[in-house]
C-alpha cells in the first residue's frame, strides 16, 4: 500500500544516512508540514488556539526533556520549574523592553544556568534518587517564585506579557502566535532529530546505557551529563518564554507546578522514551485525552439520555484516562512510538506479512 519499500536501494552511504531514507517518509513529513502551515486557513480557529498551539508548544518542551530522559537516561522531575524559570526570566526581560527574540534566549540561558546546578547532583545520584533530587528543585523554585513579589508580580501573582513581536511580526491574534511556535518547534525538532547523529548524541547514548562503561571508552560522564542537563534546560527555558508569550499571555506560579513536571514526564514515557515522534504522540494523548474523554462522556450522556450522577459523570473521564494509559502500556510497553512503528512496518511490506530483514 502506502509504504512500499520495494525498489529502493541506496547506493551511497550518504543516502542511507539521511534523516528519512525512504521517499514515502519524506512525503509524509512534507505533507504534515504543509498541513500544519495551512491549518489556520482550513481549520476552525478553536482547533488552532486550543489544540494545535498547545500541542506544538508542549511537544517542543517535552523534546527537551526527552533528550535528557530518553537520550541520556537521567530522570528529571523538576522540568516544570525549568520552564517556569525561563518564562519568568523572559517575561521580566520583555517587560523591561527587551525584544522577544533576545528575551527568549535569555530565558533559555537562565534556565540552563540554574538547571545545570541541579544537574550536578546527577553526577553522584542515579535513578529514582535523582528523581527526588530534581523534585527538590521543583519545590525550591516554586517557593522562590511565590515568596518574592518582585518575581511573581505582587499580591495578585500574575504578570501580563506585554505586546511583543517576533522578527517583525507582532504576536497577537490567533495565527501569528501559532506560526511563531510552529517555527520554533520545527527548529527544535530538527535539532533533536539530528542530535543523535552527532558525537554529542552518541556520547549521551553511551552514558544512558552505562556511565561507567562510557567513561572507560573515553566519554567523560562529567562533561556530557552536565551538557545534557544544560541543553535540555535551555530548551525548557526557551519554551517557557514561548509558552508565556504565545499561549498563556499572563503567567502565574501555578502554571509551573509539580503537575506540569509530572505531566511532561508522562508525555515522554507514554510516547516512548527517546523517540522524537513518540513525544508528539505522548503529548497528544496526555494533553487531549482528558478533554476528549469529557466530551465523549457528555455526548454519550446527552444523546442517549443516560442520567449519570454528577460525580460519576465528572470522574468517568479520569477513570478512562488512567485506564487508557495503563491499557497502552500493557499492550505496548515501549510506548506509542512503538505502536506507530509496528503499523508502519506492517504497511511497509503489505500485503505480505513479513519483511526479510
Amino acid at each position, binding site marked *: 500500500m502506502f509504504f512500499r519499500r520495494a525498489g529502493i536501494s541506496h547506493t551511497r552511504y550518504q543516502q542511507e544516512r539521511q534523516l528519512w531514507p525512504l521517499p514515502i517518509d519524506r512525503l509524509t513529513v512534507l505533507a504534515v508540514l504543509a498541513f500544519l502551515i495551512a491549518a489556520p486557513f482550513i481549520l476552525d480557529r478553536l482547533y488552532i488556539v486550543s489544540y494545535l498551539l498547545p500541542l506544538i508548544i508542549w511537544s517542543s518542551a517535552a523534546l527537551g526533556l526527552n533528550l535528557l530522559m530518553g537520550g541520556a537516561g537521567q*530522570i528529571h522531575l523538576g522540568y516544570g520549574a525549568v520552564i517556569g524559570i525561563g518564562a519568568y526570566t523572559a517575561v521580566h526581560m520583555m517587560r523591561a523592553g527587551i525584544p522577544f527574540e533576545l528575551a527568549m534566549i535569555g530565558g533559555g540561558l537562565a534556565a540552563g544556568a540554574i538547571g545545570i546546578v541541579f544537574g550536578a*547532583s546527577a553526577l*553522584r*545520584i*542515579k535513578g*529514582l*534518587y535523582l*528523581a*527526588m*533530587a530534581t*523534585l*527538590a528543585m521543583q*519545590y*525550591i523554585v516554586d*517557593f522562590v517564585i*511565590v*515568596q518574592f513579589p518582585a518575581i511573581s508580580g505582587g499580591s495578585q501573582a500574575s504578570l501580563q506579557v506585554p505586546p511583543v513581536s517576533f522578527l517583525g511580526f507582532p504576536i497577537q491574534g490567533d495565527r501569528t502566535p501559532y506560526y511563531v511556535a510552529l517555527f520554533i518547534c520545527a527548529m527544535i525538532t530538527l535539532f533533536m532529530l539530528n542530535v543523535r547523529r552527532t558525537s554529542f548524541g552518541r556520547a549521551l547514548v553511551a552514558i544512558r546505557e*552505562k556511565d*561507567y*562503561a562510557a567513561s*572507560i571508552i573515553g566519554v567523560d560522564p562529567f562533561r556530557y551529563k552536565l551538557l545534557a542537563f544544560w541543553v535540555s534546560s535551555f530548551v525548557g527555558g526557551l519554551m517557557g518564554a514561548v509558552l508565556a508569550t504565545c499561549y498563556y499571555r499572563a503567567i502565574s506560579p501555578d502554571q509551573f507546578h*509539580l503537575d506540569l513536571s*509530572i505531566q511532561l514526564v*508522562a508525555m515522554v*514515557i*507514554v510516547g516512548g*522514551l527517546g523517540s522524537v515522534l513518540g513525544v508528539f504522540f505522548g503529548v497528544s494523548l496526555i494533553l487531549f485525552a482528558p478533554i476528549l474523554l469529557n466530551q465523549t462522556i457528555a455526548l454519550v450522556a446527552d444523546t442517549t439520555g443516560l442520567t449519570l450522577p454528577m*460525580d*460519576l459523570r*465528572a*470522574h*468517568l*473521564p*479520569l*477513570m*478512562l*484516562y*488512567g*485506564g*487508557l*494509559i*495503563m491499557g497502552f*502500556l*500493557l499492550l505496548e*510497553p*515501549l*510506548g506509542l512510538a512503538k505502536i506507530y512503528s509496528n503499523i508502519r512496518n506492517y504497511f511497509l511490506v503489505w500485503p505480505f506479512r513479513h519483511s526479510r530483514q
Partner: protein
Amino acid sequence: MDVILLAELAINGVFVGLMYALLAAGIVLIYKTSGIANLAQGALAMTGAYVVVMLAGGLGLSMWLAIPLAMAVMFLVGALIERVALRRMIGQPVIMVIMLTIGLEIFLRGLLPGLFGASVKRLDLGIPNAPLFLGDLLLSRALLIGGGVSLALIVLAILFFNSRLGVIMRAVSDNQTASWSVGIRVERAIAIAWGLSATMATTSGVLWGATQGVDWSLSLLLIKALAIAILGGLDSMVGVLIAGVLVGLAESMATGILDPIVGGGTRDVVASVIIVLTLLLRPHGLFGREHIERV
C-alpha cells in the same frame, strides 16, 4: 525561643513523620521485592480509606469491624492489581512499569470519588479531640495514636523480613531467576508484597483520613512518602523509620523557627534541601544498599 514550644513541635513532628513513614514503608515493601517504585501508593491509601468509609457508613458496620474488613479487602485488591497489571509487565523497562503505576493512580482517583462521591467524607475513629496537657505541653491524642500505630506496624514489617516469608521476599528481590530455580514461587511472593503494601496503605489512609476527612486529596500523601522512602534508602525498612522521623522533625522545626523569619511556608523546601544534601553524601539514601554496578 520558647523551649516548650520547641518540645511540642518536636513531638508533633516525630509522630507526623511516623505517620508518613507508614505509607513510605509500603513503597519500600514493594520496591524490596520487585524493584518497582509504586507511585499509586497514595491512591491505595485513598482507596483503603474510601473502603472503610463505605463499610462503616454505607453498610453501617462498626469502625472496629470495618477497618479489619477493609484491610482484608485491600489485601485482595493489591494482589489483584499485581496479577492483572504488574505481572504482565515483567521484563519491561522499569520506567514503563513506574508509568503504569501513575496510570493506576489516575484510574483509582477517578474510580472511587466517581462511585462514592467526591465530597469530603467523615472517618471518625472516636479519638477525642480534647487537648491533653502534660504540664504546659499539649499533646494531640490523634497524633500520638496515629504515630504509635504507624511505629508498631513498621516495626512489625521490619520483623516480618526475618520470618520465612520475609526471607523468601528478600531472596526474590536479590535475584528473581535464582529464586525461581530453588523453588520459590516468585509471582506469589510479589503478589503478597502488593497485598501487604495495600494493607499498610489502608491503615495510613485511615489515620490521615481521621484528621483531614476522606477524599481524593489523600493520594497527595504520595509525594512526601516517596521522599521519605528515598531518603531512607528505597530498600530499607529501618531507613524508612529513621527518615520519617527526620523529615517530620525537620518540617515541624522549619515551620516553627524559619517560617516566622521568612514569612512563608518553608517546610517542603527545608525537607527537600535536607534530602538533596543527604543524597549527595549518600547516593543510595541513609540505609539503602549500595547498588553494585557491573560494566
